[in-house]
């Protein structure tokens, strides 16, 4: 099947590829997926004192849709508060990238990565970890 233009755009020009210093207190890191399953995402956020995400970076091992989903996620995260960011739903990503049903798991993984990064930040900064609903897969 052919990829949507938006997937191709994010895949060809991925936004915010890179690594933040995970030892810093204001950096949250989420590493989700497994090499055996064919996709691993690492998503990182840098948060200021007002709980606003000032920077986001990713690296992804996976198919085009997985790379595009994480690239899009970093774009959406920047400028959001961590409370707003936690509400990003995988179906928003599906819709934006026009992912076919067989690729929905890529968006789920991106949502998991966001939540896991936010929780890492919260725990590091003395906030309680949020209870996350068990992801859909």
């Amino acid at each position, binding site marked *: 099947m052919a*990829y949507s233009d938006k997937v191709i755009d994010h*895949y060809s020009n*991925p936004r915010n*590829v890179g*690594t933040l210093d995970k030892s810093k207190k204001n950096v949250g890191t989420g*590493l*989700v*997926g*497994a*090499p*055996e*399953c*064919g*996709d*691993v*995402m*690492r998503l990182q956020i840098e948060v200021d004192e007002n709980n606003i995400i000032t920077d986001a970076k990713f*690296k*992804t*091992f*996976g*198919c*085009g849709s*997985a*790379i595009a989903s994480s690239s899009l996620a970093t774009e959406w995260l920047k400028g959001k508060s961590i409370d707003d960011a936690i509400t990003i739903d995988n179906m928003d990503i599906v819709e934006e990238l026009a992912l076919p049903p*067989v690729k929905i*798991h890529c968006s*789920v*993984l991106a949502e*998991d990565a966001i939540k896991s990064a936010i929780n890492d930040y919260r725990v590091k900064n003395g906030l309680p970890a949020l209870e996350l609903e068990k*992801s859909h*897969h």
Partner: protein
Amino acid sequence: MLTTPIYLDNNATTPMDPRVLEAMLPYFTQKFGNAASRNHPFGWVAEEAVDYAREQVAKLIGASEKEIIFTSGATESDNLAIKGVYEMYKDKGNHIITLTTEHKAVLDTCKHLEKLGAQVTYLEVESDGLVDLQKLEAAMTPQTILVSVMYGNNEIGVIQPIKEISAIAHKHGALFFSDATQAVGKIPVNVNEDGIDLMAFTGHKMYGPKGVGALYVRRKNPRVKVTSQMDGGGHERGMRSGTLNVPGIVGFGKACELCQLEMEQDAKRLSALRDKLENSLLELEESYVNGNKANRLPHTTNISFKYVEGEGLMMAMKDMAVSSGSACTSASLEPSYVLKNLGLSDDLAHSSIRFGLGRFTTEEEVDFAIENTKKAVNHLRELSPLWEMFKEGIDLDSIEWAEH
């Protein structure tokens, strides 16, 4: 001049040779008769064309023309051979031996027969993709009626020791069937020298048309029979009814004739190009060839590029058609069962790319493929968290991954 996209997926299908098309064309319009029409010239002309094609096909594999049953392709031939032998000989025994790395058309046919009372042994292959002959011999029982082993593997190109396998089958009184879809027309295949009793192959993997294939069924020493799976007018010596696809058969015949004439040259040229491609790509760190390199089809290589995922990689290999053992290329999300059966870990199976060269592949295209693939692998490794961890010396096995 290089025209893109370039096609390096010749194990999936080959383009038709223009000389084949030319041979076929009259049989769509002027010479359209039914080869089974015995009472007028339209039928005679069609029958003559089919007879000639049958000779061309038989000659390529060292058979007699009476031993060729035309079918719709290799999947049908696999079904007819395995189901047909089981039905015909099940009073003699109900045991079939095959390999875990066979094509789905063989594996799923065997699974179907298991429901009907067959006992099937699916033998594991060694890590290079080859069958261990001692394990094969150990699996033979007095109930074994059929051994089914493919000639050359579609994903990794590994060629099985066919002569030795058929000798073992015969020693224990079983028939030997080979799915030779990827091998016929690419390397010399001779049913008598190889001791093959039944063999499936198809037109569209050897520069012929799609929708036409053949089952070779031995007529002497021993005389083999299969129960037909398609009943009707009793065509093809009663083993496969249905009006013959005359233009397709004519094209298949022509394709076989061309392969016979040009196979040796093609194989020499393609194995040199394949080796150039493979050696250049192995210059990339952490890349590995899958399957035995010595016993291999001349036009195929299958390489895993560790820490990048196959489908993502194919997307980056712009303007190139290849194939991957990655899960993401199939609906099942399971990586290639062939690669897994070599003992490859799932992550290496996910990282594999199959390159299949063909008669029309040029050196310029191979050079393009080398450069393009290297660029893509390097690009995706820049994006890969696993590559970064590997470079930092982190043992990926030490991480507790959230399997999903």
